[in-house]
């Protein structure tokens, strides 16, 4: 079999594997659900994830060790990942090939020529790595914005899959929603359609992971090159060159993505994958100008302090940014989150949403809870997000830790925020209507939402007794709405304060049930009032964990009458609300 065919099989295999992992990232034990599928494998193979988190945290978290395998293979063989494994690369490869397949050979050679701008990806890499390189000062991991694996992971999981799966329902019982998914899709499609202008546009010009591989592959033991210095200079080898690495001349090893098209296209068998350097000469180092290098270095050094000038990690922190349970303190969280969206994908209730820049630039696409979306806030008996997080930006907590049981009893439950009641919007507080849906749904025991019983006189003139027995009162007025007070929530109060539950009413009479007899029959001509019994919700801040199910279920569906904000979250002591007991 030809090596390009093996390469194609490898690309299809890994692409399908990637798609499969996207599909099965649903909590459950069926074959097409999470069970034990290594759904983070591509993210863990990604050395940019590894190096980024090593720079910010000086540790290599668990299965990201897989990246070592990629690094070793790259050091030995060159940028194999780009053309053999990378699912994003395969998409570009295919679209670039398909979109330009009818062009003439000279046009193709023109498309696939080396361009000076291919050095931009090195600047992108330098910029991002410098941003994460000084954790003792201020570091933020922003590689995920353009790192191809997180990029395609969130594009598939948060945009394409929900759209495709909507009529099928394989990946989720309920419809999935992701705020701002349009931006993710726009970036994905832009990257894909740019292949029509220049094949593998993203890989050649932007991809910071590709840039990293280029640097790692400098000393590759095997590399593409000419096995003789003379050739007829037909340029056939450059017509399908995926990397734009000039195999016809002095090949640029750093740009070569090991597609093997040149070897395939060379009719003279001059190009081979060999141990010795190309006999026509080769460029092993990336073509990076000193100016560009310094510029990206300086921008990277200045970027973090510049972003942090808005003080979003200090007193100007954004209370709307509610992180999933187990998330590290904001500063540590930002050192690890790669914006892959796995937590948003796996969250059974769909409450974890991609953050926007309203939470600060660094917040973009990081997990943020939105209780207005999804089925029921952060589910009490669930820790899925932390289990799936590839970098431990959200720690893999146990239920006992989340709920503060067992050995965590002393530490208490993990609070992700605090519910605040808006008494100006709450039905029982502001409008004298019974409700307490929030109390009903509060999952902790004892409930963090408790109630206060009050009897409020309704807005109406006092009624005058015309005739009365122990259980019926006929009124002089005859304008009561029929059976309006028969709901079990309304009471009739006599002048002496005796209060009885109303069972039925007509326009001019009120009836109590037999067990609600007036001991003293209201006198003729005396006044009676109608009261509504209200259970007004109150929040016990010591018990509230900020799960947001109250906010989700609140029937005041526009601006909710109970809303969670991040005050009191246990992950950061400086956002504490109460004194320690």
């Amino acid at each position, binding site marked *: 079999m030809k090596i390009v065919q093996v390469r194609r099989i490898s690309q299809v295999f890994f692409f399908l594997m990637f798609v499969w992992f996207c599909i099965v990232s*649903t*909590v*459950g034990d069926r074959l097409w659900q999470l069970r034990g599928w290594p759904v983070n494998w591509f993210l863990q193979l990604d050395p940019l994830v590894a190096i980024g988190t090593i720079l910010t945290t000086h540790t290599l978290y668990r299965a990201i060790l897989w990246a070592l395998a990629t690094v070793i293979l790259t050091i030995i063989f060159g940028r194999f990942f780009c053309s053999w494994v990378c699912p994003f690369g395969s998409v570009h490869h295919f679209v670039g090939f398909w979109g330009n397949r009818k062009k003439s050979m000279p046009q193709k050679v023109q498309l696939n020529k080396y361009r000076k701008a291919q050095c931009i990806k090195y600047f992108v890499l330098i910029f991002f790595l410098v941003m994460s390189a000084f954790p003792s000062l201020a570091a933020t991991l922003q590689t995920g914005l353009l790192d191809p694996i997180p990029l395609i992971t969130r594009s598939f999981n948060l945009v394409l899959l929900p759209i495709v799966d909507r009529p099928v*329902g394989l990946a*989720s*019982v*309920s*419809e999935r929603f992701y705020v701002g998914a349009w931006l993710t899709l726009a970036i994905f499609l832009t990257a894909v359609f740019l292949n029509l202008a220049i094949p593998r546009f993203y890989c050649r010009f932007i991809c910071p992971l590709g840039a990293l591989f280029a640097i790692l592959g400098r000393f590759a033991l095997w590399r593409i090159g000419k096995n003789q210095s003379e050739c007829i200079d037909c340029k056939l080898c450059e017509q399908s060159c995926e990397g734009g690495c000039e195999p016809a001349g002095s090949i640029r090893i750093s740009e070569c993505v090991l597609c093997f098209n040149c070897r395939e296209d060379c009719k003279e068998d001059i190009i081979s994958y060999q141990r010795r350097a190309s006999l026509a000469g080769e460029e092993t180092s990336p073509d990076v100008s000193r100016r560009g290098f310094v510029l990206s270095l300086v921008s990277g050094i200045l970027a973090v302090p510049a972003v942090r000038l808005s003080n979003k990690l200090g007193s100007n922190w954004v209370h709307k940014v509610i992180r999933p349970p187990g998330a590290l303190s904001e500063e540590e969280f930002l050192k690890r989150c790669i914006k892959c969206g796995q937590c948003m994908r796996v969250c*059974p*209730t*769909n409450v974890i949403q991609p953050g926007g820049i309203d939470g600060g630039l660094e917040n973009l696409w990081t997990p943020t809870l939105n209780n207005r979306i*999804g*089925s*029921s806030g952060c*589910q*009490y*008996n*669930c820790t899925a997000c932390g289990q799936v997080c590839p970098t431990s930006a959200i720690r893999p907590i146990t239920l006992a830790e989340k709920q503060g049981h067992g050995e965590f009893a002393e530490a208490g439950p993990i609070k992700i925020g605090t519910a605040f009641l808006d008494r100006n919007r709450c*039905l029982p507080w502001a409008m004298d*209507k*019974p*409700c*307490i*849906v929030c*109390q*009903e*749904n*509060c*999952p*902790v*025991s*004892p*409930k963090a939402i408790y*109630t206060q019983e009050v009897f409020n006189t309704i807005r109406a003139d006092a009624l005058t007794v015309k005739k009365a027995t122990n259980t019926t009162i006929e009124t002089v007025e005859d304008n009561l709405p029929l059976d309006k007070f*028969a*709901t*079990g*929530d309304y009471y009739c109060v006599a002048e002496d304060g005796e209060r009885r*539950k109303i*069972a039925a009413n007509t326009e001019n009479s009120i009836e109590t*049930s037999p*067990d*609600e007899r007036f001991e003293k029959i209201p006198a003729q001509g005396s006044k009676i009032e109608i009261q509504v019994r209200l*259970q007004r919700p109150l929040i016990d801040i010591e018990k509230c964990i900020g799960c947001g*199910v109250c906010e989700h*279920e*609140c*029937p005041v*569906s526009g601006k909710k009458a109970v809303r969670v904000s991040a005050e009191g979250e246990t992950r950061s002591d400086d956002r504490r609300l109460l004194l320690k007991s």
Partner: protein
Amino acid sequence: MTDQTSENFGRREFLSRAGKAGISIAAAGTVSYLLYDNKGPKTGIDTEELVTLPDFSIPYQQGQTISIVKGPDRVETLKKAIELLGGIERFVKPGEIVAIKPNVAFASPPMLGATANPELIAEVVKLCYSRGGAKKVVVTDNPINEPASCFTLSGIGKAASAAGAKVVFPKNHLFKHTTLAGGRLIKNWPIFFGPFEKVDKLIGIAPVKDHHRSGASMTMKNWYGLLGGRRNIFHQDINTIIAELAMMVKPTLVILDGTEVMMTNGPTGGSVSDLRRANTLIASTDCVAADSYGCGLLDLTVPDLPYLAKAEKAGAGTTNYESLKPIFATVG
């Protein structure tokens, strides 16, 4: 290429173009004519095609309307309770399709008692198949929390499937609008209709739970799971909506599980300390009667739950369960 200098050619070209223009104008005119609307958009809510939930009840049999069985093992008490009412054969005929509506409201493990007990569900499913000869048994609910998590964590999904039942999750297309005759709240309101549309019998299974707003959540409150849409607004008038649900749903049989009763912190619970053992299981064809007995397990009386009297007044059942001559028994 058009040769504009040639007069002949220009005329032919003009005629051809005029023909195409004519067709375009005719098409635009036809579309405008067909779509012309001189009334403007309708205001108000569209009345959807309304459906009515079928009547699943079976003929009344004196002295066999309610059975109350004491015992610590809910599977045993269940078997006894059904046997005392005439056996499952009275409720399920061979070849019938049975829907079971357990309370699966929350994503909570069985030990916390916030949802119907999975062993109970499994046993009812088995009885329907083995003794009742049912063709198919469907287990379904429209939970408050995320449906898949609720069915998984409550253990009901697995128990039901293992016993051979089909678990149906709520999906948008399964909801249809209904209006309850004589109802005040259920008017043109979406209900979880799909799973019940083509079944012959309906069995409701609910635990006995404290419920702060309504007083108690039992077999009648269990029908709340059939409501779709923004059902939370009905909490403003909880007694009426529960009574209307009892009017709307006419089940074949309801099972009220008071083996362990959630005394406090309901309906979610969250701690085993919220539960109290009452070792009681009630089977009845009358949910009002079942709940009227069941409220005693929560130390409540019938007047504490105004929805009971309301449902009785509407003809959905009787609060005076004594009048039905309940069959009492003890197992184990």
